[in-house]
């Protein structure tokens, strides 16, 4: 086992660090969190710089136009990009992390030719139409219907939790093409251009009070059969091909954000009065911060385990679920501790007393995005119990 870089990794890191130091300062100020058109322009500009430098599609295979980096290099890329305060991937996430890799694995030559380059150079933005309000954790019970009409599918239904929908060019869409077979067997994967008639995008306001997501209402949207990826009724497998591209790096950005939030909370504690001194002078508070920091350290190590296991042939079953379960707990404990340190400054999601308190209160809400999004903590527990520990299925 090694934590140090191999010579190749060290070279990769040094070159990347130099390039980031030169190029990140070229960017304009980052637009507001919910200014989607602004975010799209900002990220597309950065993606173009990456593309021209050969860093786009860092984890994509070379034959798909990517860099073909090893998982270790990918992790180095994420670490260095964060340290250099390079833009995070938000608008480009679905295209780069899900749709693109799926097309590389399952797309037709025409589909690849039309889409991959656009994702890599930042000119095409994708959104994801998988989740539905009624389906929830039972993703495969989706109801959005697609009926074949000549060389089109006519699609009607509703999708939820679709980020970037207001600025996306394409949507990776799961639809039900056969309602008469077991739920996993009647699903098809389609590329839906977002400018087709019949698509309505409604912002979805979260508990934060902002529109991080959208709902898609689809009313007889006509999608060419040529836009189908994989066979009809084979969409569930195609969607899981996408997931298998996940190489243990999915939560790195998240975790870096949380680590920063933890460090900011330490700084807040150092200047916040509590009892006779500051909150930081309170050993109980210090220990709780230490426990959170230790678990974040451990999750970094777990990420390295998973990334190196992924490089050798695949993530261990259940490792993603265990990671997420632990991470959800850390984020929640950090939020709870933040409240106690902020005390009455936690009554608003605004910076109070000249300290960056708003982010801490937001962090408490964000804990739910972690414990609910991408399969609730309860679903992760079921996955571990049944698939890893081999406990009998619920009857």
């Amino acid at each position: 086992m090694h934590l140090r870089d191999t010579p190749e990794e060290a070279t990769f890191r040094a070159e990347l660090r130099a390039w980031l130091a030169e190029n990140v300062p070229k960017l304009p100020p980052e637009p507001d969190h919910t200014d989607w058109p602004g975010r799209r322009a900002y990220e597309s500009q950065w993606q173009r710089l990456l593309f021209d430098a050969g860093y786009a599609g860092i984890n994509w295979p070379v034959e798909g136009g990517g860099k073909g980096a090893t998982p270790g290099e990918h992790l180095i890329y994420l670490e260095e990009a964060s340290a250099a305060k390079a833009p995070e991937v938000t608008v480009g996430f679905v295209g780069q992390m899900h749709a693109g890799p799926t097309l590389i694995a399952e797309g037709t030559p025409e589909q690849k030719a039309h889409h991959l380059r656009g994702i890599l150079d930042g000119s095409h933005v994708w959104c994801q139409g998988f989740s539905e309000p009624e389906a929830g954790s039972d993703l495969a019970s989706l109801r959005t219907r697609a009926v074949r009409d000549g060389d089109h599918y006519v699609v009607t239904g509703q999708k939820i939790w679709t980020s970037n929908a207001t600025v996306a060019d394409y949507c990776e869409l799961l639809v039900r093409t056969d309602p008469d077979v077991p739920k996993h067997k009647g699903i098809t994967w389609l590329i839906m251009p977002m400018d087709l008639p019949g698509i309505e995008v409604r912002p979805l306001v979260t508990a934060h009070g902002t529109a991080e997501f959208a709902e898609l209402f689809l009313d007889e949207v006509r999608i060419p059969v040529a836009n189908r990826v994989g066979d009809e009724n084979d969409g569930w497998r195609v969607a899981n091909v996408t997931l298998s591209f996940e190489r243990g790096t999915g939560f790195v950005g998240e975790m870096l954000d949380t680590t920063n939030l933890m460090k900011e909370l330490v700084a807040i504690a150092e200047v916040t009065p509590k009892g006779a001194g500051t909150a930081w002078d309170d050993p109980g508070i210090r220990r709780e911060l230490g426990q959170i920091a230790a678990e974040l350290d451990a999750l970094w190590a777990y990420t390295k385990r998973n990334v190196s296991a992924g490089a050798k042939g695949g993530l261990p079953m259940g490792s993603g679920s265990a990671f997420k379960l632990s991470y959800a707990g850390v984020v929640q404990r950090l939020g709870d501790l933040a409240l106690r340190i902020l005390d009455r400054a936690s009554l608003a999601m605004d910076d109070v007393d000249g300290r960056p308190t708003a982010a801490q209160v937001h962090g408490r809400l964000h804990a739910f995005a972690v414990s609910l999004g991408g399969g609730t903590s309860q679903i992760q527990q079921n996955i571990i119990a049944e698939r890893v520990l081999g406990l009998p299925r619920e009857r």
Partner: protein
Amino acid sequence: MDLTTSDDQQALQEMISRFAADRFDIDTVRAFGEPGGFDRAAWAELAELGTFGIALPEDAGGVGLGTIDAVLVHEALGAGLVPGPLVAATLAAGLVDGVIDGSVVPAVLDRPAHGPVVVEHLRDADVLLVVDGDGVSKVDTAGLAGTVLPHPTDPVTPVTLLDAVPTGERVAGPEVAAAWRRLGSVLASAQLVGLSEASTAVAVDYAKERQQFGRPIGSFQGLKHLLADCYMRTEVARSAVWSAGVNIDEPEPGDIDRAVAAARLMAARAATENGKTGVQVHGGMGFTWEVVAHLYLKRAWVLETQFGNPDDAAELVALKVAG
């Protein structure tokens, strides 16, 4: 010794609950949070029920009941997510003219030892009462410079940031101030108990209806055990809060400050943990603005620091145990 509600007390709680359900449906509740959304007519109707004067003597215009009855009323108000400065109005009803009938809306500030000066509901208030070790002071809100913070944590609890604790006219001495702090804490804790119970009830209803994997999600033991813990926390907290309320009415059997602190600890734990479970049980929908689950949690987050926070309460109980 009798720590159960009488028939009259149950009727009182039911009256408040019914009124809250009728007059403060969820849209009305949410509207209170909007700028200018404080509905003085609804507030006056709430006052007319005797809500704020519940524990004041009848010759002072009150209902003449005990602290424990005020506790029961605030439990029902909390469960109904009723908006506005409920604790402040109950404290001030005997001291400031017009509060008891709802025509004057008060806010209250427990002078902080340090840290920012944030006041709930000051945006909508006519008068601010400042409580500290020396007594209670009255401040006219007309002349107050402060910033209404744009993103209150609980969207229904507007929060104003003041540069400093304002000085006003002394209207009561240290005994009244001490009594306000205890009563204020217990009433906020009572609302927390109401929130604990109501957020659990909403989650239970959802768990019975919502189908996943071909069955109601409430039939899965994972969620059952989470919800059973919610019930446990509510009942334990209720016991502590009732005990503190009765202890204020009957000082002999115990240490009031310890009882008040224990009540805050248990009530804050119940309301915040049950609030989180409530959101979690709703799955992704619990994270949407539209679904009401997050409002219980946010109200709990705001109330748990009112007249004492859980950390200070734990410290106080520990010191009392050590004698």
